[in-house]
């Protein structure tokens, strides 16, 4: 589904990623681990097309995403969901509106939105919080809204960039359980994290980065640096 072919990302002379190649299949759950600055977030940014690779190419279902123009990029982003470390919710909108925004932006009908948003909020255990604004939510709740927003588009893959970075252990585990549940339903998950306990608990594929290079890529891997 996703393939990185000899991808490098260079900022001035700094190699955030250096000749990285890997493939991710549908329904896979992949943890991308490494120290701070190893290149985890860079992979997420490249997949989100927030940045373009300096060298190499990235394919999503056979399409080179760096060749996408504005309209194509917009459509591509609707096929992937993203959970950011700092949730990145829209502060002037309540929980319902934040989640619905993703569907409105995709041009979905009011009927579809009316049906899907409550369902997704129930999945992430935020039923009853629809009218709350971002400022009224805890860190864990914000991340669950972010996950709901990612999920409501029925994406083929969810990118989670250090989603538990600002959370306490209890909320972290809750979030991970949600991601696992979503993965069971068929959505691929790419989780960038430096949380050793989570990675070791998940026992899924682990891609380990160090100084922009892949040093290990193991099925049912462990956090090893």
């Amino acid at each position, binding site marked *: 589904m996703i393939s990185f072919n000899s991808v490098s990302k260079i900022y001035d002379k700094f190699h955030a990623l250096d000749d990285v190649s890997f493939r991710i299949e549908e329904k896979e759950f992949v943890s991308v681990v490494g120290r701070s600055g190893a290149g985890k977030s860079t992979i997420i940014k490249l997949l989100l097309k927030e940045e373009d690779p300096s060298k190499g190419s990235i394919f999503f279902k056979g399409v080179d995403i760096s060749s996408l123009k*504005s309209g194509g990029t*917009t459509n591509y982003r*609707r096929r992937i969901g*993203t959970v950011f470390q700092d949730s990145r*919710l829209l*502060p*002037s909108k309540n929980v319902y509106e934040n989640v619905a925004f*993703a569907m409105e932006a995709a*041009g979905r009908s009011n009927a579809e939105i009316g049906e899907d948003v409550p369902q997704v909020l129930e999945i992430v255990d935020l039923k009853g919080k629809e009218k709350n604004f971002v400022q009224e939510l805890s860190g864990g709740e914000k991340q669950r809204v972010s996950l709901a*927003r990612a999920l409501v588009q029925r994406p083929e893959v969810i990118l989670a960039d250090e989603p538990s970075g600002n959370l306490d252990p209890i909320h972290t585990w809750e979030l991970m359980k949600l991601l696992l549940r979503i993965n069971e339903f068929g959505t691929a998950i790419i989780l960038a994290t430096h949380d050793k306990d989570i990675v070791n608990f998940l026992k899924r594929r682990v891609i380990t980065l160090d100084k922009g290079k892949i040093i290990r890529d193991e099925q049912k891997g462990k956090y090893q640096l």
Partner: protein
Amino acid sequence: MNNFFRIFKHGWLGFVRNIWVSVATIGIMVLALSVVSGLLIIGNITDTFVRELQGKVDVSVFFDQESDEAKILELQYSLEAREDIRDVEYISREDALSLFKDKHKDSELLMASLVELDSNPFQASLNIKAQDASQFGSIVSFIENSESRGIVEKINYKENEKVIQKLISITSSIENIGLVFTLALSFVVVLITFNTIRLVIYTYRDEIIVMKLVGASDWFIRGPFIIAGLLYGIFSAIITWAAFFVLVWIISEKTGSFFPGTDIFAYWSQNFLSILALLFAFGVGLGVFSSFIAIRRYLKV
């Protein structure tokens, strides 16, 4: 259509939910539009003042004592037919005498002098006012080349020419300075409004980027900000117009006594639709345009 309603809804909600940002933005735009309104009033005062000043300038044509009144009236009619003429007043010899007596009735010496004279010493004259002081030259030239030139004894234009030219120069300078002042301040108004809205959009830059990353199109993101710009413009235009309505009502009498002939309240009331339209055009146009331009850089993600 669905998208349009959604864009309008997001724009309206954004305007209302960030009410203090909206109020501050409208406040600054009201100040900027107040400059526009002030320029309109100053322009009206200046125009009226210049017109009054020019209205005081006239040229008198004096005729021979034996002139046939019919010929004088014929000249008057031909002058009145000209487009550059504002008014032509015929003062007969009898009227001139009567005016003199009226003006100097308290002067025993002058009254006694008149009694000494056997006949009416005054000449018939035409008092000519032009549309514009700069047109007197061609009017005088017309008279000097007309069939009536034989009965004309004197035209006082030559004696007053320097004063008239000075007046033309002064009024022209006033108009030019006014134009430069208007253009400069209008530019400042545009800058202030644009930068105000640019600052507002700057505060939303992170949100705009997130909207792009979740798959919103440029127009879906831009639309609500343009709606907000439109709302800023509408509210600021209405508030400015209303505030100035009250202001001119209060100061109209004072400005009228300082600049005779001016009535800024009458000007504001009689032209309220066109003034409101101008303020709307400025406010809404600037609000929408500024929003459109300011958001572009954040859509490049």
